[in-house]
């Protein structure tokens, strides 16, 4: 029964390989990517997106609700247009919602912070493909220093 033992050993070998892959997939990687299920898209125009990248997270109060799916320039003045793919689990944002580009920690990655707006009868809900107009751009260090120096000069 040499060949049966061989087959058993190879079978265990393959099982160990699959287990290792499962371990890596479930324990080491983020399989709970929010944008895997049903999603819808929102758009936002910024003056400056700083270091935002595709696949950067979109967060509400620190909770990831989606990801940046595309960054492009649009319009006559080439303004950065950011496409956000957001899970339909969080589909009830009003059109008074504002977005800002934030930084996690002092040196961390940049992400989009979504601040849900108020809701009453006069306010409409954002649908797939809508654009959010209330945006705050990324802080750029050089601009901040420039503003600071400028304000010093006025005194």
């Amino acid at each position, binding site marked *: 029964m040499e060949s049966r033992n061989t087959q058993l050993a*190879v079978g265990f070998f393959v099982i160990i*390989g699959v287990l290792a*892959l499962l371990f890596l*997939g479930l324990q080491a990687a983020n399989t709970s990517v929010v944008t895997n299920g049903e999603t819808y898209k929102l758009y936002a125009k910024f003056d400056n997106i700083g270091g935002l990248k595709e696949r950067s997270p979109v967060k509400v109060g620190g909770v990831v609700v989606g990801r940046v799916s595309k960054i492009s320039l649009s319009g006559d003045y080439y303004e950065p247009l950011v496409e956000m793919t957001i899970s339909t689990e969080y589909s009830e944002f009003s059109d008074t919602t504002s977005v800002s580009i934030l930084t996690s920690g002092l040196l961390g990655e940049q992400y989009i912070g979504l601040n849900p707006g108020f809701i009453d009868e006069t306010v409409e809900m954002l649908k797939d493909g809508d654009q959010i107009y209330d945006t705050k751009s990324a802080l750029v260090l050089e601009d901040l220093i420039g503003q600071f120096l400028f304000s010093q000069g006025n005194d």
Partner: protein
Amino acid sequence: MLDRVAALGRTTLDTIAGAGAAFFMLLRALVGKPNLRKSWPLLMQQMYSVGVLSLVIIVVSGLFIGMVLGLQGYTILVDFGAEQSLGPMVALSLLRELGPVVTALLFAGRAGSALTAEIGLMKATEQLSSLEMMGVDPLRRVISPRFWAGFYSMPILAMVFSAVGIYGGYLVGVRWLGVDDGAFWSVMQSNVEWGQDIVNGIIKSLVFAFVVTWIALHKGYSCTPTSVGISRATTSTVVTASLAVLGLDFVLTALMFG
């Protein structure tokens, strides 16, 4: 002077002829009607000797490399108060680079040299010619199962290596040096991506498996059938395969993460 030029020409021709012979050897071994009933037991036998028997060296070296990564990473990261980034550091360096590369190097030394020596000795003792005399194609019977066994085994071994290595990093980082348990895994999970890191690691190890097994088989099949020839072919397998893996790794990394 002309002799030098002639020597250069001869070397070039030999190299090209060798590459061509290696290509046609692989082509004739792999292309054709598969006969599952006959080739399955042969494949199992080779998976056992190439894959299962390599498991021990892969697990042990994976564990130690993960532990060293954990230790070295901790001493550097703790200076910046960033020891919670130990998890992603260990996981990313294993999944992207060390897992596929070190597995391929160990595989070339452990299994590749054995394949070359085995086939070289078969050639020296004229077993391959005897197979042909009996109407059995040695390429289909001897080369093909060994090639597929190597090709299937290496990605499995690389996955085991990475998984064990991450566990080794966890042992040193969390259990010994006291990095926070939850932060170790959660920061790792937010930085490691399935498609970008794990799948690219598997693609890398598939490419390395192809190259290392191919080189080992060709060196054995084309060796001079003497004891000196076999020993040269075995050495040449390990050297060529290791260099090919390291060179290809740079190209693949530049393509995938560049």
